[in-house]
């Protein structure tokens, strides 16, 4: 008697796959292909006239010095946000993983910020750090620190990075905590018996065993900073001052929505799409090698 179940119907597997395929097609491939098509058109905001212009949107895009500036801003912004949100979340998760009183409450509180919408998160940070209104900006001024995100690009960058990191820590925390809890205690205990201190145990046992989670989060965080942060930037700095916080995705938003330049905006999203696909591919090809499943 044959033990493994074999479906005799050749059609059934495809039928079972269809819902997933339809969702992927309708919500991912179709809009993506629309963006690609749009990037070859020049259209007014209302869509009354539409003209095929070939690669003109791309050539004019790459002729703008501001576009290269936004690339640089994106590199700075995404490395800061990804590095900070991952490392801080890991620190919090390792602390929460200890035997604490009220660990449950602590964990719940850590997860809350994730439920806050990006724009709202931005507004919260404005209230704290607005040069003249901010509750935290005033003490800075008393200490004679000239806090001015309205004109100082570094201050503005610090502000959006803080808001974006704060927003993402919860998510990373959740995954790190789950990852930590799945590490067998016996391994750590064996290390302790062999005389390894807490730091050594962390770097030689916990961190390598956590690498699948870390890798997953790295990919997710890079996608987050590339695509999901424009709400925060829009609310906090509007891309300013002088473009100091205009990331590539914010420029897509500004040109398409505020500027009504759908073709140029679509061309930028295509470029962005290519970059993120490439980044993810690189991560899977090179970083994943170091992951120990």
């Amino acid at each position, binding site marked *: 008697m044959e033990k493994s179940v074999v479906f005799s119907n050749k059609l059934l597997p495809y039928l079972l796959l269809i819902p997933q395929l339809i969702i992927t097609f309708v919500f991912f491939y179709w809009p993506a292909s629309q963006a690609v098509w749009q990037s070859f058109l020049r259209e007014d905001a209302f869509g009354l006239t539409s003209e095929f212009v070939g690669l003109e949107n791309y050539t004019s895009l790459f002729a703008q010095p501001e576009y290269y500036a936004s690339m640089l801003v994106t590199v700075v912004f995404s490395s800061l946000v990804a590095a900070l949100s991952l490392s801080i979340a890991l620190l919090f998760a390792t602390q929460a993983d200890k035997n604490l009183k009220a660990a449950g409450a602590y964990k719940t509180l850590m997860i809350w910020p994730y439920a806050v919408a990006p724009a709202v998160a931005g507004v919260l940070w404005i209230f704290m750090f607005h040069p003249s209104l901010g509750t935290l900006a005033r003490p800075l*001024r008393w200490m004679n620190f000239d806090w001015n995100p309205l004109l100082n690009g570094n201050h503005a960058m610090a502000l959006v990075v803080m808001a974006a990191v704060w927003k993402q820590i919860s998510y990373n925390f959740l995954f790190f905590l789950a990852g930590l809890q799945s590490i067998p205690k016996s391994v750590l205990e064996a290390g302790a018996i062999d005389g390894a201190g807490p730091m050594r145990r962390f770097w030689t046992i916990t961190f390598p065993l956590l690498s699948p989670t870390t890798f997953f989060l790295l990919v997710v965080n890079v996608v987050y900073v590339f695509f999901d942060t424009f709400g925060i930037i829009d609310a906090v700095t509007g891309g300013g001052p002088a473009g100091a916080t205009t990331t590539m995705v914010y420029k897509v938003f500004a040109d398409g929505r505020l500027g009504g330049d759908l073709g140029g905006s679509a061309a930028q999203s295509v470029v962005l799409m290519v970059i993120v696909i490439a980044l993810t591919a690189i991560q899977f090809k090179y970083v994943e090698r170091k992951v120990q499943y």
Partner: protein
Amino acid sequence: MAFRQFGAAAAVTVVLALATPAHAVTEIQWWHAMTGGNNDIVNKLAEEFNASQSDYKVVPTFKGSYPDTMNAGIAAFRAGTAPHIIQVFEVGTATMMSATGAIKPVYQLMKDAGEPFDPKAYLPAITGYYSTSKGDMLSFPFNSSSTVMWINKDELKKAGIAEIPKTWPEVFDAAKKLKAAGHTTCGFSNAWASWVHIEQFSAWHNAPIGTKANGLDGFDTVLTFNSPLHVKHLENLIELQKDKTYDYAGRANASENRFASGECAIFLTSSGYYATAKSTAKFDFTSAPMPYYPDVKGAPQNSIIGGASLWVMGGKKPEEYKGVAKFFTFLSATERQADLHQKSGYLPITKAAYEKTVKDGFYEKNPTLQTPLKELTNKEPTENSRGLRFGNMVQMRDLWAEELEAALAGKKTAKEALDAAVARGNAMLRTFEKTAK
């Protein structure tokens, strides 16, 4: 079975037919961007109009900020579900008027609907902004304002400044005195950076922002606001920013409360700030005309307006247009305009409403509200001060502000920043020109 379904459907139809009044009420959708006290005014206007007649029902819907509302309207038009009336801020004018077919010009609407409509009854300083060069009114001005200089009289007195400064050099002096008297973080400031320091500044000094009467006469306009006058003004600001005698306060108006909190005793922003100032400032304040450079010939000229107008979207039924036209007639009534002006601080749009407010002696008690009207009507408008109409103006303002920020942060000289603002703006205008045909 089929018969039973038919029966049920028929019954529903009969019930519906009985439920509807003798004549159907035509709904008119009105999307707007008014918040706070002004939102209440919008709702009250709709209620009053709906109560005044029984054929039409105006339904106001708040759609977020000005850019949000405009984008919602554009997206709805693309999806075929545009509202009848949409409130668009002044900088969206070029985008809206170039969308032939997407909009119904107001003069056309009034003519088709047979509503009495005399364009001459409206204040030209306001309607000029929303009219073609031939004088045909394209959109209906709703809330208009202009830039004024808000003054904290108590603080000026404390700093020993006897008279409200009239010129820029006087403002700079006053700001230095205020700084010495304890206003260490802000001698003077302003909201709406580009609007105040580029658009209004140019009109007030009778200097062009761009060719072709600032774009009113054609989309092939070229920006020219990198003149020596503009450079000199920005250089002055850069110098004063260094020790916060002037302190930049952002592109929009989020920092207006730096005036109400007492931090900045001199603050340039919209005259529409009146209602908020009245309710939040705990000191004696007033508004004064914008300062000017006395060595510029002809200055001060006249200011231009800001605010928003109501656009009528295209492709609706004649019956619905009739309702919109009736609503505009309702809004233009002298009593209503005078009342709106006196409550909200926005400008009256008809001459009759202005004259009535003067006759009522309202300005003697509230001189603050007359400042923008005095500015707008200071002189007969010239090519440089009728208004402005640049495509992509929504984003253009941000672009100009970006360059102002770079200059004030010391990253560029005044000349470099204005040259860049002009060059980048012109590139944007050429893209717009190609799509606007």
